[in-house]
């Protein structure tokens, strides 16, 4: 009897628990859609109400992670109308900590967009002071938010982000200290580490010090995991990476290390990857794409997996999922230039199919949006060349591409090759006229290419016939000398071959000039 009772009792307890999980899920509910809808409504009062309600609900629960993740993601937007709603919300109550945090997030995001992809040539055209201003303002608003209410978790993260862009030495420790008192979590320790940017002196020592001091304060975290986080998230030298790799191998089964296991999976290794590893890696990657995952980053990894790791068909599979994910992303963040660059790169080149005029118009509009923050990106100018209407526009775009990369030899080579391929792609009746119109710009790039080769090492492939464009350079130069075409270009001294000035692009320039963030 007692046995039956106890079994029934357990069954009942379980079913109550299940019902409870299904019916009341306040702490797990993701408010992202609600906040986004309120932001789009244009009504600051609705926004205030929705955000406050979601926050109150999260505060009542054990874990606020879901709320803050949605909150941050919703305000990481470059949508002018949404940012105008946010600005109105801030005006209505200038002291409100949630609104302060929201604007801090938005400004850090805009500043990051303006600073561009950190991988681009450091000599490339840099953003203006006005854009860097967003980041300073973000740090300022975030500290105001924390002063008003010390539980504004995302504000701390904004401070770490702002410090990472600051020329002054970063000091994330006091903020991390306060943050861990509110919520001891690994994610906060890792966010604090990002404050020490790549140009910090003795960076790894500083990250290790954070680990020694703060990792023990976080349950389910320990110094060893933290040191691994530190090494992988900085460009630590090989002996340290070796140590980290050993830790990852030793503790491969622990979830805390899965991310780094995947990171190692993406690295080159002698002898290639085993089938089991490939399967594991591809599966792990497949699961990563959700609405919070940046599809540009995600697809970037997919290219590695399908490319040199050699999981067959994976790039195509990932592309099919990445296209709608990027489109969805761009609804919320329409000026994300890196996202658009990848979208255009795939849509026009790698997976390009013939486009209708309407599709072309749509892509052109996207390209213009991307240019608001992406002027300094060679890749973005480069993809824009496929959208050029006239030979003159193609000339301007590609010269500006070379200019944006400060006439780096790869940019010159690629632009020269693209001139050539765009001519061969033109309708047959227009081809000769186009080739004639573009001859002198091409000769100039050929001379530039030739000169830049003298700055390269002897065995540089780009300056040998192994490289297809190298011979195109030779043909153009021979033509210049033999047929004496383009005498102005032929007469230029070496230093004057460099593309020194950005050429005006009337339509694009008008579009960019009309852009406003929506914030005050």
């Amino acid at each position, binding site marked *: 009897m007692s046995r039956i009772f106890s079994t029934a009792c357990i069954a009942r307890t379980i079913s109550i628990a299940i019902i409870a999980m299904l019916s009341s899920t306040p702490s797990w509910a993701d408010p992202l859609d609600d906040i986004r809808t309120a932001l789009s409504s244009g009504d600051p009062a609705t926004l205030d109400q929705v955000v406050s309600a979601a926050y109150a609900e999260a505060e009542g629960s054990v874990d606020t992670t879901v709320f803050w993740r949605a909150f941050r993601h919703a305000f990481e937007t470059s949508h002018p109308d949404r940012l105008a709603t946010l600005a109105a919300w801030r005006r209505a109550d200038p002291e409100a900590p949630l609104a302060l945090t929201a604007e801090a997030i938005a400004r850090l995001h805009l500043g990051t967009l303006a600073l561009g992809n950190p991988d681009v040539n450091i*000599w490339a055209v840099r953003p203006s002071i006005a854009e860097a201003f967003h980041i300073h303002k973000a740090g300022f608003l975030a500290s105001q938010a924390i002063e008003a209410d010390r539980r504004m978790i995302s504000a701390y993260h904004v401070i770490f982000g702002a410090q990472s862009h600051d020329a002054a030495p970063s000091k994330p420790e006091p903020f991390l200290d306060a943050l861990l008192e509110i919520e001891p979590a690994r994610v906060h320790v890792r966010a604090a580490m990002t404050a020490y940017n790549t140009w910090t*002196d*003795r*960076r*790894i*020592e500083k990250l*290790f010090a954070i680990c020694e001091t703060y990792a023990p304060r976080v349950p389910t975290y320990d110094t060893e995991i933290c040191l691994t986080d530190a090494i992988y998230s*900085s460009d*630590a*030298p*090989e*002996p*340290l990476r070796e140590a980290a790799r050993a830790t990852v191998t030793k503790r491969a089964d622990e979830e805390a290390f899965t991310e780094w296991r995947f990171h190692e999976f993406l690295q080159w290794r002698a002898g290639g990857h085993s089938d089991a590893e490939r399967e594991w890696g591809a599966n792990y990657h497949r699961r990563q794409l959700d609405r919070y995952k940046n599809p540009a980053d995600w697809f970037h990894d997919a290219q590695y997996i399908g490319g040199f790791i050699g999981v067959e068909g994976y790039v195509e599979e990932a592309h099919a999922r990445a296209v709608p994910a990027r489109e969805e992303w761009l609804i919320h963040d329409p000026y994300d230039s890196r996202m658009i660059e990848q979208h255009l790169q795939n849509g026009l080149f790698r997976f390009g199919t013939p486009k209708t005029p309407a599709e072309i118009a749509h892509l052109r509009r996207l390209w213009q949006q991307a240019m608001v923050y992406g002027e300094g990106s060679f890749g973005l100018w480069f993809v824009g060349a496929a959208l050029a209407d006239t030979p003159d526009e193609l000339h301007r775009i590609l010269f500006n591409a070379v200019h944006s990369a*400060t*006439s780096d030899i790869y940019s010159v080579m690629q632009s020269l090759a693209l001139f050539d391929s765009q001519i061969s792609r033109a309708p047959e009746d227009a081809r000769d006229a186009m080739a004639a119109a573009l001859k002198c710009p091409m000769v100039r790039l050929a001379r*530039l290419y030739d*000169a*830049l*080769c*003298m*700055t*390269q*090492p*002897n065995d540089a492939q780009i*300056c040998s016939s192994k490289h297809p464009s190298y011979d195109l350079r030779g043909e153009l130069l021979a033509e210049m000398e033999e047929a004496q075409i383009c005498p102005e270009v032929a007469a230029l*001294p*070496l*230093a004057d*071959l*460099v593309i*020194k000035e950005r050429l005006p692009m009337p339509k694009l320039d008008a579009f960019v000039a009309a852009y406003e963030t929506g914030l005050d």
Partner: protein
Amino acid sequence: MRLAVLIFAILFGLPAVANTYLERIDAAIATGSTETLEAEVTATHATAVTPEELEDFWLAFDLAFDATNPSTQRLISEWHEAHPDSAFAMTAMATALSKRAFLHRGAGYGHTVKGAFLEAYLADRERAATLALQAIQADDRMVWAYFTLFVVVQTSAQQADIDKLISDLVRVFPHPRAVNAATSMFHPAWGGSVEQMLEVCAAHAPSIPGYDAEACGAYAMIRNAPNDRRTHAAREALWARDEPWLDDLKFHDFYEHGGLDPGNPQTIDWAIEYHRASLDALTDPAKWWHQATQLAFRYQMPLYDLEAEQRVMPFLRAMDQRDPYDYYRIRRQIEAAMLSKRRYDGVFEEDLQAWALNTLVYGRHDGEIWRRASEILPSRSDPPFPYLENFVYRHTSKDYALAYTLGRLNWIEQTTREDLSKVETPQSPDAVALRARHEQVQCQRARTARMLQAECGFGFFNRSRYCSLDNRNYATMPQILQALDTGEMCPEIANAPTHSLAFDKMVPVPRVEAFLATIGEGLE
């Protein structure tokens, strides 16, 4: 004699832009006869009448005798011996000594010049000062003797009436260069002052046709006191004027201090054009090239560097003969050649080797020169470690030098280990030699790692980036020290007291010693 001139011209590969005075003096040097030299220099000087002609003559004189070529130097000594009363011979001797003094010293900060190098520097300067004064006493038209004296007088024990010297110089050479050289004697870093420089300008500039105290003051302040509170006003006055002869000073102001409006594209274009046009036979080609590199770097014009390099190459080739041991020039040639051998069609491994040896004639006090030599000279029979020991010993940043050396040794260890792993018969002489080499390198690594640790103070008191785990060379140190602790590696280093491991003296390098023995002394 004609044949000699011809051979000389071929040897020196004279650049397209020539200078008559220089050609005549060079031809006289090429005869090797002190009689001809005395007669020809005197005759050439007599043809220079106007201040501008005199300027060209003396610049040519300087280029010809301010040289490290041992045969030229020997000839100068013989000339001075054969014609002890010749003012030209004394001036030539003073010029060459002043140059050699500076090579002994190097461009490092004062406190880094030590020991024998400092003594050699001071001794050469003292002799230069004595000779320059004697030359002026013998013939007060020896313009370059005044110039040399103005440079060396600060360290000299010679008593001289400076005011009279300046007046005399301005009288025999009424050219802006004369007052300008005089102001540099009152450089604040040498104990002078802005007031003294301005006094010289006020007293002497107005007596020079076409010159004035304002332009002279601008020269003095911009060249010698760029951070004085009055310099900005002087600079504004300079840029407000538009006489073409002020362009040189404007260019200097732009190049050194950015001018009044550093980012202005028109000024940048102007400066490039000015610099482009300023290369001629009397230009210091190494300096001109350095300026081109700097302009190209600062204003992001990589190809201006290349353009300048192509133009300057024949001038540099000529200098290789004229002035073979001026390491300031040669190290730039080495660096450019190492950066891209593609650019140096005529440069082969032997040229690099010859250059590297040449830098060591006067540059042994400089750690960086040893570092470059360690990259170029070593071979299987001439291991790099002694070069690196001298590099560390002579370098003023020990942390950097030790971390770099550890990196080099790590690489040698790795390649030796890989070679060893490919050995098929472990008892073969090759294998035995490889093992011995590996052991030796391990001990060199151990010594360097221990010194790096000592230099960095365990990262507690030296917080430089070379003492950080971010540094890939420093990051290998903990493993090496661990291997030392466990006795796996080089026990004699593990157990040695730290001071006995220090890189604290110059180590003889057989190949370098052998080369230096062939040079001999030029100047007596």
